[in-house]
């Protein structure tokens, strides 16, 4: 198997290396890839959409239909992971662990026993619990608001600097994941529950589609944002940049929710009780 695989890989590689002889040399401005359609984008983006970052403009405006279904692909990946792993049978573990916070005593309660009410003093802990690390918890608590502000900045400022819905959404999701890693999964699901995560992801995709549909209702093509000028009361070029911002917010919401949902399902193997 090993030899056969190596032979196949070598054949594949030599074929590709033979093909590189016909390539334009690296960084050639007159290569076929950069002569047909991309000069149009580079030269007309600023006049058409008033967005200096060409990548954002092409992503959300010229190729908005493409990006919409990319978002749908991500959404369906989140849903697929949910249906593969999530177990709806509520299997209670045999024992539960509770911890009395002021004294640090751990209670082990067998099945059938009376569970204490969760409060500031009593907290339920994971079966593989390790003592709290004050340094890590405090640093994460301090750093998470800045991460979220940065993520919102990335989404909103994607017109002028690198960034946009995908990156900002991933960073927002990462802030929640950092919280879940530094505390535990239960305290993270208490703040953003699974239901809310799925709702957010659908809302994101629907916001994208609704922006396109709004353009249809206003008597223009699907995802042609210049029609939005009737609502915002601005000229059609600025309306296109507003439309791009709306779409980016939708993408950001969907991506954030899918990332959180993937982490919840993978880290708890679908049971959503104990994470990493």
């Amino acid at each position: 198997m090993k030899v056969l695989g190596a032979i196949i890989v070598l054949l594949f590689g030599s074929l590709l290396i033979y093909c590189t002889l016909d390539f334009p040399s690296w960084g050639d401005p007159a290569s076929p890839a950069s002569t047909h359609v991309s000069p149009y984008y580079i030269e007309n983006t600023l006049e058409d959409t008033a967005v200096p970052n060409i990548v954002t403009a092409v992503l959300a405006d010229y190729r908005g239909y493409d990006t919409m279904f990319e978002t749908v692909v991500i959404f369906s990946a989140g849903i697929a992971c949910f249906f593969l792993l999530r177990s709806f049978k509520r299997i209670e573990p045999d024992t539960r662990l509770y911890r009395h916070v002021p004294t640090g005593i751990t209670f082990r309660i067998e099945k059938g026993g009376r569970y204490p009410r969760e409060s500031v003093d009593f907290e339920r802990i994971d079966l593989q619990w390790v003592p709290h690390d004050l340094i890590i918890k405090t640093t994460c608590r301090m750093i998470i608001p800045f991460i979220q502000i940065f993520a919102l900045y990335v989404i909103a400022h994607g017109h002028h600097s690198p960034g946009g819905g995908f990156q900002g959404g991933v960073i927002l999701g990462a802030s929640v994941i950092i919280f879940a890693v530094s505390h535990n999964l239960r305290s993270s699901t208490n703040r953003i529950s699974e239901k809310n995560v799925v709702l957010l992801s659908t809302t994101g995709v629907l916001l994208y589609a609704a922006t396109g549909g709004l353009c249809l209702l206003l008597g223009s093509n699907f995802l042609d944002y210049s029609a939005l000028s009737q609502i915002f009361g601005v000229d059609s070029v600025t309306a296109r940049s507003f439309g791009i911002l709306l779409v980016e917010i939708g993408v950001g919401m969907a991506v954030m929710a899918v990332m959180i949902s993937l982490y919840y399902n993978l880290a708890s193997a679908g049971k959503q009780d104990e994470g990493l």
Partner: protein
Amino acid sequence: MMWLIQLIILIIVVVTALAAITVKDLLGAAILFGAYSFMMCLLWAIMGAVDVAFTEASVGAGISTVLFVAAVFRTSRRTKD
């Protein structure tokens, strides 16, 4: 000059890729894959693809490493090859 930096990073990328598929510990492989992604992100930043580099830095080096670690934590860590 820029060409030389690119070449050095490309060599590091190849080395980390080889290490990620040969190391005999899945957790180590996940971390090496994160390093591979980060080097790739540097390469794209040099090539001028800032948006792609940004995405790779947040997705490849951040989220996918966490997902790998979570999956390895839920399954097993040992491997034969």
